[in-house]
């Protein structure tokens, strides 16, 4: 693992929140952001590839319930995260390394908080592991 964090961000919510968080500063250098048109675009394979590529933690930022432009895109994304977490468990990795997060565009502070928590989680895993 290379300690990277990957955040898949819906263009309509996660990306906006990320921009705000970035403007406020304090996001770790390890964070890589991948823009998607809707969280529903993300497949299990992309999440696993992120881990294969060395990510220590992966986050999916989707629109909050009942405000997804593609109606159910956020729900699909959440389900795929659940299934991917199950795979992580069965391959002997900590499912907590993958986080699904509902976020609204102006929630920059919350974005930073999720990233910070993930950062702490993975570094404590590294210490224990």
């Amino acid at each position, binding site marked *: 693992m290379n300690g990277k964090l990957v955040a898949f961000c819906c263009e309509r919510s996660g990306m906006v929140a990320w921009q705000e968080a970035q403007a406020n500063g304090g996001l770790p250098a390890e964070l890589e952001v991948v823009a998607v048109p809707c969280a529903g675009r993300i*497949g*299990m*394979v992309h999440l*696993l*590839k992120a*881990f*294969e590529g060395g990510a220590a933690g992966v986050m999916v930022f989707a629109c909050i319930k009942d405000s997804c432009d593609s109606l159910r895109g956020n729900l699909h994304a959440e389900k795929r995260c659940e299934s991917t977490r199950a*795979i*992580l468990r*069965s*391959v*002997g*990795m900590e499912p907590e390394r993958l986080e699904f997060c509902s976020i609204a565009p102006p929630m920059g502070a919350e974005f930073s908080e999720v990233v910070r928590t993930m950062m702490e989680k993975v570094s404590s895993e590294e210490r224990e592991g």
Partner: protein
Amino acid sequence: MIVGKGKPVEEVVAMVEGYDRILVVGCNSCVAVCMAGGEKEVAVLASALRLAFRAKGREVQVEEAMTERQCEWEFVETVREKVERAQAVVSIACGVGPQTMARKFLDKPIYPGINTSFMGQPEEIGVWSEQCGGCGDCVLDEYGAVCPIARCAKRMLNGPCGGSQDGKCEVGNDTDCGWQLIYDRLKALGQLDRLERNVGPKDWSTDRDKGPRKIVREDVRV
């Protein structure tokens, strides 16, 4: 189509534990469409296997391949090169696929990556239901094209059992009562009289009960 579902990843990991070069082969036919053994599932399983071995501190080579239809010799042949490179193959085609591979690649261990379940149809995204039992002697004509063998938990041919309530079967899991469906359908068709007749015991020799089945078409064969 033939419907199946991926085996738990840990089960597959346990099957291929000792190998260093593994090939995961999917099938572009039924199992691709039912989201169990297509290109995406091959990629997911291969990725999961790599991560699993990496977590155990082993770098294992996991290759990916697709066959058009894994139940056919000619298509299986298209992945020969990759099969020969691998020490073991995980097939995520229906149960026919691994067997076709096993007969083609005699020295290669082939492991199944999905549980093949039934012949059925997609109800909605993510839901498939069994529709045909492959009994070898179709009775749909009598039952308004709703199969009592595949869709009644007790394969009853003369009407519903006493466990049918509010359209649901006694086995639970929100299973529809096949006989309620038959009844509703024949009622709508104005053919309820079909159900008045006593149907005698079925000849099950066309089913699995006469041993492995084979269809020989003399009109086609030369």
